[in-house]
């Protein structure tokens, strides 16, 4: 009995080993790692697929997270080739730290910031001012330290004179998509997300206001300085800026830069 078990275990190990070797060989095709803002998730997945099929032998590996977290990964030496954060500040920081090639930097889309509530919510929220009401207890937003959507929210609410007043109600999230998730599940009374995020969850959230008192939301993209695939990375950026790339982005609600 015991011997059978040991033989079985060895066989499992051997099979696993074969798979690992095979997987290692599959990686032989060229990979392009694209670190993109969480709000670009759906659009960049499609762009990545289109780019991969247009360039046989190339595989786009997208890496989505809050822009600030992506910046930290690149700074700590992650093997990233293209960087596309959701705000200028993050890209400026990358530039200051000489993490990107400045001549490759281009703005490729714009976006809007909106206030959303769970669909069917009973609390009447029509504007950011309404969040001060007593029945509103939890308001989700991106953590301004790392999440661009949170930074824009902070700027807009500060200019409205609401930031201090609302801050006890804030639920900071790790990315704009987490804010969307909190609102979709009804765990919070309201949240601030990009217009494109709200658009992919129309069956779960309702947009009640568009914020204006913040800097224009422009997404930059650039080749990462440490890449060994500079030409391929540049080709990917060209594809994002091309008509085909822009059509995909506008399909997901992004605006012209």
């Amino acid at each position: 009995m015991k011997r059978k078990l040991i033989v079985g275990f060895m066989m499992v190990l051997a099979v696993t080993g074969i798979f690992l070797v095979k997987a290692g060989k599959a990686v032989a095709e060229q990979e392009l790692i694209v670190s993109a803002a969480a709000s670009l998730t759906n659009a960049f997945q499609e762009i990545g697929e289109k780019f991969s099929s247009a360039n046989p032998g190339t595989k786009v590996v997208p890496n989505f997270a809050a822009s600030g977290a992506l910046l930290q990964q690149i700074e700590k030496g992650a093997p990233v080739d293209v960087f596309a954060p959701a705000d200028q500040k993050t890209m400026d920081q990358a530039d200051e730290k000489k993490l990107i090639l400045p001549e490759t930097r281009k703005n490729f889309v714009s976006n809007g910031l909106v206030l959303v509530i769970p669909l069917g919510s009973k609390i009447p929220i029509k504007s950011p001012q309404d969040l001060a009401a007593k029945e509103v207890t939890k308001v989700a937003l991106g953590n301004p330290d790392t999440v661009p959507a949170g930074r824009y929210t902070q700027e807009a609410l500060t200019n409205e004179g609401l930031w201090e007043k609302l801050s006890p109600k804030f639920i900071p999230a790790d990315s704009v998509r987490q804010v969307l998730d909190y609102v979709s599940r009804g765990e919070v009374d309201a949240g601030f997300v990009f217009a494109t995020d709200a658009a992919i969850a129309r069956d779960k959230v309702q947009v009640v206001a568009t914020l204006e008192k913040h800097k224009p939301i422009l997404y930059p993209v650039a080749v990462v300085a440490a890449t060994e695939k500079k030409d391929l990375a540049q080709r990917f950026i060209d594809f994002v800026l091309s008509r085909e790339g822009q059509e995909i982005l506008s399909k997901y609600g992004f605006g012209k830069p």
Partner: protein
Amino acid sequence: MSKSLIPLLLTLKVAGFATLAAFLIGVAFAFLLARARFPGKEWADALLTLPLVMPPTVLGYYLIVVFGRKGWIGQWLYDAFGVTLMFTWQGAVLASTVVSLPLVFKAARSAFEGVDPNLERAARTLGLSEVGVFSRVSLPLAWRGIMAGTMLAFARAMGEFGATLMVAGNLPGKTQTLSLAVYDAVQAGNDRLAMTLVLITSLVCMVILVFSGKILKTQYLKEVDR
């Protein structure tokens, strides 16, 4: 300093309550499963051990489904009392309790099973009630195993991350425990704060390990003396 002190105190509070809850629930079920006979007993054991082998994110998701504002129990809690566990420190306690429960339960069950049933029978013939048998014979004899499991549970609760993040969020000063604060500081590139937090965590864990070792040892010596 307060930036690292607040998460530390919160962590100790959350881990303390979670360990207490895991202790009470774990010991109760361990005694039941060690002594009672009923169909599906090993299935119950597997269910209680499941949190040990499952990824914390899976547990977090289950907890959201059950205790979220639209969850089975969460909805009722909210409608009836206006309470929700999401994004509260009590929610963090819930997550840590579930994650650390198997450690108490497993250790306590094998400790109870190691107690000679003849001793319990002898106590009964000497006129002790069932509660008396449990509290004066079974529990003291199984105590060391239970305590070892409880210490591990406390350590596990202190380091809980995944399920806590999903249920209680990451609210500075409210639900941001040490492990979450470290994550946050690293994400934001705040390496100095991260280093301070990491050192504090390591120090606290060392102190707990040394003291728990001492407590267990003195407990053992007392038993030998008797």
